[in-house]
């Protein structure tokens, strides 16, 4: 195997160019190097102006998502040797406005997150003096999977609905809503249902399942959405179509 590999990077300098362009850089292709190592090599050794986000280098901060050969990936977990002999094409995450080089605008998601009330909603809060809420390991495992999200945005980048309709609230936000709905301490699912049953909410999802496919933490947003649709449909049925009360 060749010990060098070419990275084809999307560069975008809005003050100089109207459209992104591609530039090629040759980096070492070491067995233990991930795409992020290649990018840092370029930044440190070849071109100090290359802009991209990263932080923890261990797949937990969710900063370094990019499009690698057309697929959304965490670049700290994507090995260069898997793409040998190259070249490897690296672009910003799709479906987001590009600010510069590999950096995208994410404020839309931050706003969406807050709309689904990602905290425990209670009619009555429990005083601290009474100790913690009780929750058995089984109750906890009901929603734990949906709590693993690292907000890396790969699911939005992969989502065909979000690409057509940026108002769609999107996979991670719905999975997060479900994380709280299924939490035995929470009493806010009704409030969240009102938000999510709007057009941009769950009904927009066509269940393509791309989000679950690309999720690096196995959160399964598609499963969350599907389950939510079912719950929401049953709730509607119960209130409108089956006035005598459903099972």
């Amino acid at each position, binding site marked *: 195997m060749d010990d060098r590999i070419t990275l084809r990077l999307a560069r975008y*300098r*809005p*003050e100089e160019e109207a459209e992104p362009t591609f530039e090629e850089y040759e980096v070492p292709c*070491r*067995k*233990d*190097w*991930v795409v992020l*190592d290649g990018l840092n090599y370029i*930044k*440190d*050794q070849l071109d*100090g*102006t290359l*802009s991209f*986000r*990263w*932080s*923890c*280098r*261990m*797949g*937990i*901060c*969710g*900063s370094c998502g990019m499009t690698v050969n057309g697929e959304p990936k965490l670049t700290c*977990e994507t090995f260069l040797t898997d793409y040998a002999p190259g070249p490897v094409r690296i672009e910003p995450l799709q479906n987001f406005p590009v*600010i*510069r*080089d590999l*950096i995208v605008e*994410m404020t839309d998601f*931050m706003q969406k*997150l*807050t709309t689904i009330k*990602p*905290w*425990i909603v209670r009619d009555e*809060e429990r005083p*601290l003096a009474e*100790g*913690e*809420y*009780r*929750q*058995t*390991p089984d*109750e*906890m495992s009901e*929603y*734990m999977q949906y*709590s*693993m999200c*690292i*907000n890396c945005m790969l699911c939005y980048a992969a989502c065909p609905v979000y690409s057509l309709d940026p108002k769609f609230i999107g996979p991670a936000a719905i999975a*997060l809503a479900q994380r*709280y709905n299924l*939490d035995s*301490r*929470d009493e806010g699912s009704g409030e969240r249902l009102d938000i999510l049953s709007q057009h941009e909410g769950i009904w927009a999802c066509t269940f393509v399942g791309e989000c679950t496919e690309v999720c690096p933490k196995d959160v399964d947003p598609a499963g969350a959405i599907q389950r939510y649709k079912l719950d929401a449909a049953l709730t509607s049925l119960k209130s409108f179509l089956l006035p005598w009360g459903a099972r």
Partner: protein
Amino acid sequence: MAVHETREHDVLIIGSGGAGLRAATSASAAGVSVGLVTKCLLGKAHTVMAEGGIAAALGNVDERDGWKTHFADTMRGGQYLNNWRMAELHAKEAPDRVRELEAWGALFDRTKDGRILQRNFGGHAYPRLAHVGDRTGLEMLRALQDSGVHLGVDIYMEYTVIELLKDGDRVIGALSYDREKGAFTVFHAKAVIIATGGIGKLYKITSNSWDCTGDGPSLAYHAGAELIDMEFVQFHPTGMVWPPSVRGLLVTEGVRGEGGILRNKDGHRFMFDDIPPLYTDQTADSEEEGWRYTQGDKEARRPPELLTRDHVARCIVREIKEGRGSPHGGVFLDISWIKEKLSDAEQHIKRKLPAMYHQFKRLADIDITKEPMEVGPTTHYAMGGVRVDADTQMSVVPGLFAAGECAAGLHGANRLGGNSLSDLLVFGKRAGEFAAQFARDNQAGQVNHDHVEEAVRRTLEPFDDVDEAGGEGPYQIQEDLQAMMQDLVGIVREEEEMERALVGLERLRGRARRVVVSGNRAYNPGWHAAVDLGHLLTIGEAITRAALERRESRGAHSRSDHPDKDPAAASVNIVIKKGFDGTMETRRETIPAMPAELQAIVEEMK
């Protein structure tokens, strides 16, 4: 004169990790306007990487636990150099801070009857760490962020603070630039809280993320604050050593809490060879007793792998130096051996340590349920930082507060695992409350615009020097600094090497003055690195000077030329302050005696 954007807030918080977010929550609850500036995006701060848990004497797993034991453990772990008042407040308030986080939505592993589960960790007498698997930091930050986003805090993401602004003696704001455009913003505030976290990027091998460059203590130092305990840098005993690209990444102490053991290349469990006198009575006599302890036997004493981090790191270094290390220069950490004891060991490991399982499988191609890991010490945490008042978290500079890793005092000479997350919650809350109080009691100060312009000019210098001969980019300088600190002011230190480090720092400072960056100010990583470099050099000098001054070995500070403890230094802090002539001054200060009731607790638990 350029006109910069100005933002007004009652309280300005610098940093979006656990301490910054917790401070924002309480300041905002106090009814003042809060701005929060962060170098990264919300939710990405280094706190997300914390793994093992939050130490709090809830007594859910062992009812014998209580604040007094937590206090005594923290003081013993810190070799009694801790600020005892902070240790007291921390031990007393941590349980409520955890329950509060739980009530806001944080998910925790649970006991069978639904209470928050607690796990064993080094130096804690009882299972004390509230946790969720080995991703507690992520959950903590998420809970703070999710519950905090609706509080009306103005969050400025990807802004770097370059200077604290003063009016007379008082801090009245901060100057920053945003990474996206490179435009300068003046934050005008009645109180400023520094919550910038750690300094790990000063060293070559570290568990810290790119943003841990010591900005907070450096900014505070230049604004006149005192730094203490800078000589105490925690080298976490277990970082990954292989492959090279991930060297330094953290392997949680939870592995040892769940029964993981350390062996050298001959298969010898070397941690039984050297037990420090402070801990002999609390440490298991046999491997069998140690195992029983990890499985919750209340009669058993802890295995030596769960001694404090400073000691475990030193033992590992000894094994490696004396030629008994693993192939890639570490030692072996084995959790797979528990299959001799548990029939469902593989599932158990994956359930208790899912992130570790994933990390080693993906990055090192090692299945930790079947084979041992290779681990070695990694720069992890700064016990030192901004000296603060224990109750209010205010520094000696009026209006300037600090909380979390960038503040000092709680941990003394060595921090116990799990005490950092509880530190963030307890003192983040206090800093937020008292900064809000300060903001209500004081009028806004006057911004000195000449000072602002001077700082702006200095920050932009790297762009001016493009054609100047002899200038170089920031990365090589940063790399040389990291290598030098690792070699000369690392785990084991000596006078001659540290003197050389001081000379080296001066030389690096000269290179940093001529640093050049290409491109423009928009998202320019080279420029960011050049700005970070100034902070790293300040902190590097502070650590080196404090380490030279402490002529003994204690806690995380080990000197080959002074291998023993010096009784005369047993209750002395090394204090660092910027002198009138701009040079760094070091002085020794005796720690006030503990009040009788705290002293009695320490004696009783000895």
